[in-house]
């Protein structure tokens, strides 16, 4: 498996993806679906979560990755951009959560420094850790202790509680390493009752189907992981695969694109539309550009309004902006809804 960029695939250009998504196939427009429930234009409700994508480099190359991450990706956030982010976080106490994602965010050479700095600001810190990074190199073996020291909430993908489905999506041997990494996190207290150390797992379907009900699946994961591996965790977040980047390419290659879009559109849920994560999140790209969410970031759809780069952060402009929408947004509103924190309804 190679990134789309390494393959020189046409979808490594986000414009080609947008063109494809916008081709008329008789699908309703996402904006019209919002109009029909009276929430268009979509406006933010606040900026509670400051999500930073600190680099596209990753030790894995998962088939469904919306970032098109991989070892070949060199885009990485600099300390200078991180310093601007720190001052924005410091000056805006309503930002409750700093959510670090990637790629593998730990591969950014400034990662450890940055987490230490954010932890001085007394905000909740989330790290989206792909688990295998903990075992990838000796320098990352300290991650469980480091996360514990800074009370980081760890959010990690585990598409299923068996190797077959996990490895088919994330690569050969990933399941086994992920289990070992979760055990290491458990050993320092993560996921254990009363430890205060949160370990949340992320389920996303290993294919062109929608996620199962979050509560039911969480029960199954807990039972199976505890029985087979003695593993504990706090919550399971179910996330719908978005029809962009590598997953879009997968849908087209397997001739599932139209049926998948049909599925998302037929499952449009107005309650999920009201609760989409872009209403309380800002997403910052590796180069400091501001987006409504990590998906818009990968499609290079900047926020509307004047405040397009973190150095020009202007709360008023961001709070009054119109959220930029396109057909991929149907992924956030299908069924129980989907966000970086799982189902939204």
């Amino acid at each position, binding site marked *: 498996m190679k990134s789309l960029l390494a393959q020189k695939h046409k979808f490594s250009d986000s414009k080609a993806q947008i063109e494809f998504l916008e081709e008329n196939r008789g699908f309703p427009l996402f904006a019209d679906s919002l109009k029909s429930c009276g929430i268009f234009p979509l406006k933010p409700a606040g900026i509670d979560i400051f999500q930073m994508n600190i680099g596209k480099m990753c030790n894995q190359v998962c088939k469904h990755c919306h970032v098109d991450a991989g070892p070949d990706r060199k885009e990485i956030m600099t300390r200078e951009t991180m310093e601007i982010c720190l001052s924005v976080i410091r000056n805006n106490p309503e930002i409750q959560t700093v959510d670090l994602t990637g790629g593998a965010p730990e591969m950014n050479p400034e990662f450890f420094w940055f987490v230490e700095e954010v932890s001085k600001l007394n905000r909740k810190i989330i790290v989206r850790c792909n688990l295998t990074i903990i075992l990838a190199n000796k320098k990352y073996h300290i991650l469980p202790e480091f996360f514990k020291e800074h009370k980081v909430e760890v959010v990690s993908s585990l598409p*299923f509680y*068996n190797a*077959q*489905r996990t490895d088919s999506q994330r690569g050969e041997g990933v399941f086994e390493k992920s289990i070992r990494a979760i055990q290491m996190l458990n050993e320092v207290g993560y996921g254990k009752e009363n430890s205060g150390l949160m370990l949340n797992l992320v389920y996303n*379907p290993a*294919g062109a*189907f*929608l*996620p*199962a*009900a979050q509560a*039911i*699946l969480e029960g*199954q994961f807990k039972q199976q992981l505890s029985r087979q591996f003695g593993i504990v965790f706090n919550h399971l977040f179910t996330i719908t695969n978005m029809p962009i980047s590598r997953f879009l390419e997968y849908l087209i290659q397997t001739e599932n694109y139209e049926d998948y879009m*049909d599925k998302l559109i037929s499952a449009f849920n107005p309650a999920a539309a009201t609760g989409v994560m872009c209403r309380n999140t800002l997403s910052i790209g590796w180069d400091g550009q501001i987006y409504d969410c990590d998906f818009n970031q990968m499609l290079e759809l900047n926020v509307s309004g004047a405040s397009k780069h973190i150095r020009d952060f202007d709360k008023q402009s961001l709070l009054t902006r119109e959220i930029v929408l396109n057909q991929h947004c149907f992924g956030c509103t299908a069924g129980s809804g989907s966000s970086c924190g799982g189902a939204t309804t």
Partner: protein
Amino acid sequence: MKTYYNPEDLKKFSKIGNFQKKLADKFFDYYGEVFAEGELSAREKSLIALAVAHAIQCPYCIDAYTSDSLEKGWTEGQMMEAVHVAGAIRGGASLVHGVQMMNKVNDLTM
């Protein structure tokens, strides 16, 4: 390509009401009710439907309930075991009639 079964036709199922609305409405109401949460969960019903789909060998139902079973969190192994249940019942149903054959043989032979 002309074939008796076209995957696109599955999406047109609800259109059977165009020729006979009253009965279709009653059927779809009933269908919805059957698959709602009850003493059996919607999740369990989905796996039963998958097994029955194989017993009656309906390609539309196999298509629909394979997706639905995945979306209800069943594993490939569990789904295949359900298909084996259908297979075992079908095979058993044929074989148990062997007793009828044996009875007849006994009637006809010395």
